[in-house]
């Protein structure tokens, strides 16, 4: 009888140090202070571009968090997005090959992880040298707690299929 190594899961935030663009990073910083299953890895990256594709390989599930600038929601809401919706929002990536383009390329190359969840945190326009706003910091804390609870339950029950049932919160 063969035994399989435990599946690894990743929560990965992309952003930059500019103001509210740190939204995803704040989620990771909060989660790093929590008691989480060993199979869950936490990572944040600074505008990774296509290097993100390599980073997502080998995980059974990936939750990707990015800041989004949208007039549809006030700063400090978090939203579950699909690839199409991600492309519609004004991503805060500063380079030509941003998050939505990177994920579209990964999809084209059949290199998306088996389970991918995209979460966006609505923000104000990011400003160089500023801290994140209170609204975005509070949203990041709430999302970190929510994700921690979900992963503790889901991995404890042997899977992450139940993750991501809510579509928005503030």
């Amino acid at each position: 009888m063969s035994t399989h190594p435990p599946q690894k899961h990743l929560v990965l935030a992309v952003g930059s140090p500019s103001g509210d663009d740190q939204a995803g990073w704040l989620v990771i910083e909060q989660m790093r202070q929590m008691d989480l299953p060993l199979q869950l890895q936490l990572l944040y990256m600074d505008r990774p571009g296509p290097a993100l594709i390599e980073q997502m390989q080998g995980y059974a599930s990936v939750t990707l968090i990015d800041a989004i600038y949208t007039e549809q929601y006030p700063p400090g809401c978090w939203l579950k997005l699909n690839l199409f919706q991600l492309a519609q929002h004004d991503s805060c990536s500063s380079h030509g090959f941003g998050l939505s383009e990177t994920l579209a390329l990964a999809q084209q190359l059949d290199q998306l992880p088996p389970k991918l969840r995209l979460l966006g945190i609505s923000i104000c326009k990011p400003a160089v040298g500023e801290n994140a706003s209170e609204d975005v910091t509070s949203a990041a804390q709430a999302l970190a707690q929510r994700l921690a609870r979900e992963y503790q339950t889901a991995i404890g029950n042997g899977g992450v299929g139940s993750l991501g049932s809510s579509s928005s919160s503030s």
Partner: protein
Amino acid sequence: MTSRRIRIDVPALTRVEGEGSLRLEVSNGQLIELGLSIFEPPRYFEKFLEGREAKEVVDIVARICGICPVAYQISALSALESLSQQTASPWVQQMRRAFYCGEWLQSHSLHIHLLALPDFLGFDNAIAMAEQYPDEVKRGLKLQGLGNALIRLFGGRSVHPVGARLGGFHHAPAPEEVATLVAKLKEARDDARELTQFCAGLPLPDDPQEFICVALHHPDRYAMECGEIRTSTGLTLSADQFEQHFHETHKPDSTALWSDLDGQPYLTGPLARLNINHAQLPDFLQARFGEIGLQLPSNNMFHSLIARALEIELSLHEAIQLLHEYESPEASYTVLPLESGVGCGMSEAPRGLLWHRYQLDENGLIKAARIVPPTSQNQARIEADLHRSLTAFGLDNDEDSLRLRAEQVIRNYDPCISCATHFLTLIKDEK
């Protein structure tokens, strides 16, 4: 005779780093207006550096660019360390070159596969190209990933790395970690060779033109992390002599500065390097010129694509040579006391020459900084190229064809507009 007047506006250039635009107007077969505008907000990095301790500079300049942070770090370290009576150890100098190889590898791989190749294979972007050319795109991502891994090895992370410091590195990588990466670099050599052959087999336009080449030259090796300036006009200059011949000016519509060499536009970047330093490439790459039929020096800017592919092969080769017998050093850095004064340094960023100058005061604080990135140096050359190339291409072509050719010409220079936007002086007007 029929009169034809067309105006082409490309409000946001795609597949370049940063934000810029192009404006063209053709009337009766004459190009009457051409403007390359760069409008990313200037970022005042030189001003940010004033009053900072010398040791802080290396981490601050790494933030200027997400694509070529190693170049900023190495040029800054070179400038600041010129103010010391001592030098970094041979181990540090070798590992800085290996670190730099990572940046050439990742930046060139990104440019070729995701920014340039769609032009030559007839696609709007890399995502569309990936459907028909998945193996080529995967090869590009693999090579780029190896470059990132090499940067991470020394820098701790691949974007805005934090491992470099005055006198060396904060930590030396573990030998096991290095050995694992070297094995992967060796495996990728075939991919790199195939990439060069693939690029050379593309229907690149034959577009000969005259231009001045500027690149670093090193007596012992293909210049990358250090050297002195050589120009195709016969100049040899140290970093300290840069400002005697190279000048920057402001132009309307641009938040970047424009450079000239004694009043003339010039080229810096992979093709300039290859033209000036090709004799220093290793034998297997000398043989490659014959295999792919490349005559050097080349006066066809479209050969920049092949130059980048050859430099990918070189980067893999150099990194393997530098790391295959790697052992942990006794110390990963040397404490280098700096004296007050002005220090200049430079290196070859993936896009070309990157020159830094710092003035350090008696308290060890930065009094003034000046950074001249490659894209601002190439701007005048890009405009001159556009004038000539579009006219040679045929101004009677339709608008879409002219727009595509103009974008191809610009992308040959792999401009990093984010890096290019800075000002020399900040005038603060308070009322």
